[in-house]
């Protein structure tokens, strides 16, 4: 997964559903650790703004 920062509202909803701890909200920037990510797409589902992309 990756983040489109132009669409992101940095709310952290995606962080809350990532049980691989692959997403972090670094102050106002969503950062995804692609090593930890298992492409489960949970983050995509809860994003209010469609900011997460494959």
């Amino acid at each position, binding site marked *: 997964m990756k983040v489109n920062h132009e669409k992101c509202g940095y709310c*952290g909803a995606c962080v*809350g559903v990532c049980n691989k*701890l692959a997403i972090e909200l670094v102050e106002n920037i969503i950062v995804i650790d692609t090593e930890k990510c298992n492409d489960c797409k949970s983050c995509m589902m809860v994003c*209010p703004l469609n900011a997460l992309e494959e």
Partner: protein
Amino acid sequence: MRELINNANYDVVVVGAGPGGSMASYYASKNGAKTLLIEKSQEIGEPVRCAEAIPRLEDFGIIPDPQFVRNHIKGGYLIAPNGKKIEVKGGKTDGHVVERKIFDKYLAIRSARAGTKMAVKSRVVGLEHNGDGYDVIISHLGEEYTVKAKIVIAADGVESSVAEMAGLKSKKIPTQVCSCAEYEMTNVKLLDNEMMEFYFGDICPKGYAWIFPKGDTANVGLGVIDKNKKAIDYLNEFIEHPILEGRLKDATPIEFKCGGAPVGGPIEKTVDDNIMVVGDAAGQISPLSGGGIYLSMSCGSMAGEVAAKSIKNNNYSKDALIEYENRWKEKYYDILMAELKYKNVLQKLTENELNALADAMDEKLEEVDVKKIAFKAVKKAPSLLKYFKEII
């Protein structure tokens, strides 16, 4: 500031300066514990991710102050897809709409004045049990620091990473997280300047849309659970929806907010040796309304008190901290589980069924007694029985 986090020792380290964290640190400090409150943003309360309504601030000994209170609220309208309005007033519906970024900042200042030290622009990146407590690894301006804590209170909101780092299961299931988007708008024509508006139906599947009066503005938003369409798209449709009868025609946005509300009920374990979990991270949020500020503040207060007591007794094990879990569960667990059940029923209803339910309800209610409503509804519209039999 660096000396606050550079190899320092604390009794209690609270992670996250939202209402839950600030209340926890307030009571920990007030009761004598050496407390650090860590906030990753450089400004407390940023970004705002909330509809900003709070019931009965007075319960916490907090005087509604014009610096953060924007509107008094005396009730709400529940509005069915067919436009039928149910007016609810009194009791729990009484409250305020606040400016969250200032409210949160106020609570943090209140905690600091009680003795809490505070690290801002500081992010917890690791948690390591050291036998006697936790080493909390903090990133601040690109450098890593470590503080020692006898007790960690995880109040990091929907992100729920801190408790998970400590081995408690706090991450949420995506189908149990409401996606929220909101414009704060001015020039909104409200139904009533002191009443909240709640809209149900296909405009917002498995959630609801709201208009909350906020002084010179109004929060116009919604929370939805849907795999295919995004909250922002539902929101842009809602503000032009005929059910609003053009009341937003002249409105213009002033602010945009979004967020995820974890409405799946509380997590299983909220304490372990040297750690407690409060607020959204613990799922302490109404599954029905998505309201969480009151619960976070209440449970946060309990966690702070139990933390200070444990420090005094020199016992920070799970056995000591379980008092926090017992206390909050005694007060809120049954309510949360009942609301969870009601929510699951509500989410199944079609627009026709929602209309039938609304038509079965009185136009004015003093309080929402779900069992009574369900009973009356089934009497008028027996087809609803299949959903409500569990409730009745």
